[in-house]
């Protein structure tokens, strides 16, 4: 059996950076910076207040240190909290930015993401676009495609800055209700300095006809990226949303502290998928994105459903627990995750399922793959409250170690009523030599054999991704695994 070794060369193809004219804030985090940010975005009074309250609270708390990750201490005062390309008109995007996204394969023009066709031309009216995209470059949303078409269905899909201007009542109603500013350190930081993100509202009874996609691109150095996403699905609606991200390969750590809040009303469903490919740092652990994210769904309505599906292959440190609060009776929460760590990467990720309503159900399938010197931790909490009668949880966490890295599984089960059932299983192991031998004896080279087995390991999770992105995830996984064979 061949030995595995660390990645010899940096295969991160998105590691280039773009030179463009930007407007940057000087580094530092003070109350004045917060006010300046709010003023620049021309935000109404209540948003400024929201930010300032969070900022003031931030001064009273300290960064948490309990996760199984280590990183160079972040000097919050040396980061700039706003950097955006200098252009005002969305129809006049600078060429270098367009080129960036061309290179990354992100369709800025209104054209079908898959077919590569321009659907604005009347000749192609019968081609129905499948993906609408909102593109965020550093602190600002550059373009949002198919807004008009979506509007015809009553669907609002725009940047959160735009939503604050156009739909303030709705933003005000939901912002901070799922993740209050005081929830944790990074959520608090985000609440003070959030820049842009996506706002999405699906009206009653509407099934969103396209995949909604937000693509985040970090470009500027020494900045922090703080997006804020808010998705609301009204009664009987459905939306499938995907988040993609990349960043340049810099020598310093880049901080990404995002907050994502989802709310589902009666019988609504949100499918939230993430394919995370932030720059992971080089083989010595220098640079890389620090991905500290708070994501939570409030299944408010009866029989509502939220599925979190994530494929995490990048970032130097990943620290996130997409969670569900299953408040409405009969609601369902799901968490499917594949987290790959290699080189010096560290991941401490997992989920929290809080069962509040009756007959609620949650499923957790977490697959961790680790090699090199990396550390991969699953941390989960399943809590069945007293009133959550007849609830069910099934959890399966498996860790695949491709060499002697570190795999940690830390689940907690708390059950406060006796009509519910919780089942949890976990296992840790390595690639089956027998499987690899068999595949090779049928002509597959060692790399493909490993790829095959690992794909099988991740199958349960990949099946949950929207079709198009399952292919991307597969590709990303094989690129990540390249170098796993010495």
């Amino acid at each position: 059996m061949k030995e595995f070794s660390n990645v010899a060369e940096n295969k991160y193809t998105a590691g280039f950076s773009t030179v463009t004219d930007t407007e940057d804030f000087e580094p530092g985090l003070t109350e004045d910076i917060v006010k300046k940010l709010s003023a620049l975005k021309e935000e109404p009074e209540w948003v400024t207040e929201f930010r300032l309250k969070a900022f003031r609270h931030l001064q009273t708390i300290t960064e948490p240190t309990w996760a199984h990750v280590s990183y160079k201490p972040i000097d919050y005062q040396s980061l700039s909290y706003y950097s955006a390309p200098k252009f005002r008109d969305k129809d006049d995007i600078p060429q270098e930015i367009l080129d960036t996204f061309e290179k990354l394969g992100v369709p800025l023009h209104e054209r079908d993401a898959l077919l590569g066709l321009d659907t604005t031309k009347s000749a192609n009216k019968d081609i129905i676009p499948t993906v609408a995209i909102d593109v965020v470059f550093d602190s600002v949303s550059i373009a949002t495609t198919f807004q008009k078409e979506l509007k015809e269905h009553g669907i609002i899909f725009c940047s959160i800055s735009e939503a604050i201007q156009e739909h303030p009542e709705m933003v005000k109603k939901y912002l901070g209700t799922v993740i209050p500013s005081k929830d944790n350190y990074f959520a608090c930081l985000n609440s003070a300095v959030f820049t842009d993100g996506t706002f999405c509202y699906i009206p009653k009874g509407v099934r969103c006809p396209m995949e909604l996609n937000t693509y985040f691109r970090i470009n500027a150095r020494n900045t922090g990226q703080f997006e804020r996403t808010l998705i609301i699905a009204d009664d009987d609606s459905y939306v499938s949303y995907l988040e993609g991200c990349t960043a340049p390969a810099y020598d310093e750590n880049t901080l990404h502290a995002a907050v994502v809040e989802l709310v589902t009303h009666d019988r609504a469903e949100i499918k939230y998928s993430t394919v995370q490919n932030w720059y992971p740092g080089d083989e010595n652990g220098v640079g890389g994105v620090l991905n500290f994210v708070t994501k939570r769904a409030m299944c408010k309505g009866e029989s509502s459903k939220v599925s979190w599906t994530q494929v995490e292959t990048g970032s130097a440190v990943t620290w996130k627990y997409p969670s569900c609060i299953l408040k409405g009776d009969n609601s369902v929460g799901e968490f499917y995750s594949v987290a790959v760590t290699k080189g010096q990467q560290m991941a401490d990720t997992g989920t929290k399922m809080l069962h509040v309503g009756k007959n609620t159900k949650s499923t957790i399938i977490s697959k961790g793959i680790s090699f090199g010197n990396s550390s991969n931790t699953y941390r989960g909490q399943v809590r069945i409250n007293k009133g959550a009668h007849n609830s069910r949880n099934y959890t399966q966490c498996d860790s695949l170690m491709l060499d002697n890295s570190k795999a940690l599984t830390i689940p907690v089960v708390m059950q406060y009523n006796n009509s519910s059932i919780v089942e949890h299983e976990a296992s840790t192991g390595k690639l089956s030599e027998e499987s690899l031998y068999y595949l090779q004896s049928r002509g597959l080279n060692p790399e493909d054999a490993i790829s095959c087995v690992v794909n099988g390991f991740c199958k349960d999770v990949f099946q949950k991704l929207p079709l198009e992105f399952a292919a991307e995830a597969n590709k990303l996984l094989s690129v990540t695994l390249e170098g796993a064979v010495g």
Partner: protein
Amino acid sequence: MSNLEYTIKELPDLLPLGIRNNMMQNNMLLKDMGDSINTFKESVLLSNPYYNKFYKHMKVEKLLGFINTTASQTKSMSPVMDQFQETHIEFEDGYIDTKNISNFYYGPEYITSIDRFSANNMLNLYQEYFVPTGRFSDIAYLNTIGPVGIRVKPKTKRSIPTSYGYTTKDIRDQQKDISCNLIIIDIGAGSTVTMEETFLSNPALKLYNILYLVREDAKLVLNRSFAPDLGAHIIESKVIQFPNSKFECNTQGGSNPYSQELTEVEIWDNCTTHINGRYYIEKDIVNNVYTKLHHKGTDSFSRVDVKTVLEGNAHSSFRGEIVVDKEAINTDADLKNNNLLCSTKAVAISEPQLDINTKEIQCAHGCTVSNIDADQLYFLQSRGISKQHASNMLKESFLGLIL
């Protein structure tokens, strides 16, 4: 005895005052184990174990109901005496009695007792195995009147009944309060020893810090049970398994208002480890189990199987850690925790953990929390067994009590 009243929370502050003539004041012990005593002292002074986050789900506030004068003020229940055969070893705070096992002067052939009075107690050599954990066992270490223990000679094959607590109605029994026991059990190489351990606590609170050394090729089986009474116990066991040894611990419990059983096992090469716990808890009982199996050597096999049935207002917490070092290849480890929650007010918390640092292993864990299976209940009823009776049968078979 002074009239000073205190609970386990205040104890760390009182330790340096040398109450009860504990270890910290005893010159003889300070000579033998001074280094270690200082290390523990620093740890306890740094942070009071009562506030240790480790105890998050263990309801330690219930311990405040056990005040040091409780035992002497309450009419103590008569301990279970009939089950003790003629030969057994009795351990109590600073006291060991190998009555009937030992010949008064020369001792039995297969055991040497360890205590501060015996000449070659080798206490200073045992020091290295004791490391502060920041938990109550650190207090047990410092506040004991003196460490006691037994060394079983190599190649001995014996079954030894043991009681933790006095089995005779003695005046000393009346004075026992928050008693702190530091016990060393050293099983010589090649021996096979079974210890039938019975824990007695009366209405008091008892802390135990027990070190079990299972030397090369030795096998130690612990069969633990608890005399049903109003007392509380916190039992911390540290087991060091030398290569090629076998360790098994079988506990049946749940009859005391508060219990904490924390077991850490350090496992070297070619060892076998089994930890089985079966608990039936009802009323307001709080039962906490913690096991940590640290695989340091290669080719070892471990199984943890803890099952609890909960009724009434009971509270159960389980935390099981399996740590496999990078060098511990070919480890086969499995951990199971199953809970049967039978009443509306009972609470079960389960935290199974895996910390794996090498891929050449096979490790798994599983835990379940549920009520009695409706299909099984229906099946038994369909064979003429009443619902209540069927319910009881299922609880008993869950715990493996129907043989």
